């Protein structure tokens, strides 16, 4: 009897959880649905009232207009280059640094690690003028390296990889040492493959972060052909009050987000695991 009561109780509990999850999902999706809906509406109608979104006519003109914007494919390409560059760079550097902090013994290691972690506490805005000045002095603005390089210093990445390498038992390194593997081979063939879950997490967060980044590309890329998609799209918006061209604006938002959506579809499994892992740890 107690058991059946327990099962009934659990059934109600499950339904409550399901209801809450659905509710949160709906609340979360509403702005996206609203953006999508508005993107199919003629701008002239939206100027009068956004309530018109709920009834026809609908149009693809806003999307067609995006393709009329010169440079949009160039901006997509720039975003792809920057995002992939930042992601690969962060993965390589964070893995090497993480391995070093976790395994190598050298003087001042712990102090250097704390200094790296302090990087987490410094907001980008606080250093952006000095950074701008530096790239200006180097005459590097409006180049891929200028947009990519600042993104490579990922304190989070170094921290994540250090912790992950530390969690791998040292026995494994030692077994490989006895198996005649060089230090680099141990890193490359034995330990690095074991960090793939952490690499996936870091890679996804880095890619999304780089794709969505707006501030630094806006400052560094002043020539339209070096704009990333976020900067490029923003540059076509002449009026931020959105009194006109609201549908076009929404179509741009959807369009700029599409590649990220595709990435999400491909890496859904890893992203869910990454976010869940971050929540647990």
């Amino acid at each position, binding site marked *: 009897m107690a058991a059946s009561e327990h099962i009934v109780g659990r059934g109600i509990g499950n339904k409550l959880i399901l209801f809450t999850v659905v509710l949160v999902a709906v609340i979360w999706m509403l702005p996206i649905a609203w953006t999508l809906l508005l993107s199919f509406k003629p701008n002239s109608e939206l100027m009068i009232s956004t309530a018109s979104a709920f009834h026809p006519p609908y149009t693809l003109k806003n999307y067609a207009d995006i393709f009329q914007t010169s440079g949009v494919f160039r901006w997509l390409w720039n975003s792809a280059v920057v995002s992939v560059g930042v992601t690969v760079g962060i993965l390589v550097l964070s893995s090497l640094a993480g391995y070093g902090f976790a395994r190598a013994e050298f003087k001042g290691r712990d102090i250097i690690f704390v200094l790296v972690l302090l990087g987490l506490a410094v907001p980008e805005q606080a250093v952006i003028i000095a950074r701008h000045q530096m790239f200006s002095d180097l005459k590097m603005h409006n180049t891929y390296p200028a947009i990519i390089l600042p993104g490579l210093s990922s304190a989070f990445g170094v921290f994540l990889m250090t912790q992950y390498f530390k969690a791998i*038992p040292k*026995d*494994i390194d*030692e077994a*490989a040492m006895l*198996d*005649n*593997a060089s230090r680099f*081979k141990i890193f490359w*063939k034995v330990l690095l493959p074991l960090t793939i879950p952490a690499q996936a997490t870091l890679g996804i967060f880095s890619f999304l972060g780089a794709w969505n980044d707006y501030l630094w590309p806006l400052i560094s890329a002043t020539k339209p052909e070096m704009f990333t998609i976020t900067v490029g799209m923003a540059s076509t918006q002449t009026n931020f009050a959105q009194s006109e061209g609201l549908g076009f604006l929404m179509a741009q938002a959807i369009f700029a987000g599409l590649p990220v959506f595709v990435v999400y579809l491909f890496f859904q499994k890893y992203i869910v695991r990454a976010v869940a892992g971050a929540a647990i740890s």
Partner: protein
Amino acid sequence: MSSIELDSVSKRFGSVEVISELSLTVHSGEFVAFLGPSGCGKSTLLRMIAGLETVDGGEIRIGGERVDNLPPGARGVAMVFQHYALYPHMTVFDNLAFGLKNIGTPTEEIGRRIEEAARILEISHLLKRKPGQLSGGQRQRVAIGRALVKDPKAYLFDEPLSNLDAALRVRTRVELARLHQQTRATTIFVTHDQVEAMTLASRIVVMNARKVEQVGTPMEIYGRPATEFVARFVGSPAMNFLTINLKDRGGFASAVLGDGSVIETDVPINILPSGELRVGLRAEAIRVREDGAIPGKVEVVERLGDRTHAHIRLADGSTLVAEDKGISQVQPGDSVRLAVEGATAHLFDADGLAYHARQ
């Protein structure tokens, strides 16, 4: 196979000396166990031989060649770790092949050696699996296989059975003994389990507090322990110790217990120092018998099936463990008499040094 010689080796961690001027020779083909409690330095010593710890003083030679300045991979030894340390992302085959590939062994030779090792260890059907898909016992076999394929100068085992359940531990122990009989490989086996050391090793090195207490065959260690520590550590139940007064019995020591009972030992009295002495008796040397000389009261009875251990309090308040037959009538609270086999008694001085009957 090769001998392993340790010549006055020392090791320090910071200011703490964990191994002090230790010398030892493991002969070619010999199976030696390093036995001792946690923290006694036995694993550190093994890791120094493997090259995983540096040597702060002295020399290590394997097969006559000095190796303490060589990296682990160049010493020609193979090690089986306590937690197996298999490469989780590689298949069993690749785990076995990794070390061979690193020294440029031809592919056909790698295949042949792995096939042979897998046959001996009965893991041929597991070669395509990854370690995560194996049971503890299977992983252990793979770890042994990884050592076997390398055809090393010596095998080093670091508590390899401690992660297995009791039944599997006994089975693997027998398999290791069989494997050693087949390969006749020089082997060092680190363990804190005296049963493993006694059953597997041809010689045991008993270590305590970072120094060697005794080196000897299993029966030497058991029958003629050099120190009180060895006597207590080896054997289950632990040896009984009772404070005694000494009496001369025609050149041999008679031990007078607190209650006045006398145990006639075969230990020559002239080798004994002055000062406090204790007698050491194994449980099997103390029998519950009606005609026994020592009276006592049974407090606890442990029935092990083939024998029974009775914990007995003597008249002077001291306690000891006596052995009785499996189907024993002894009950807690019984008053019993104990017969002691004095010939197997050992005497220990205040510093824990042992004195035995002549052989």
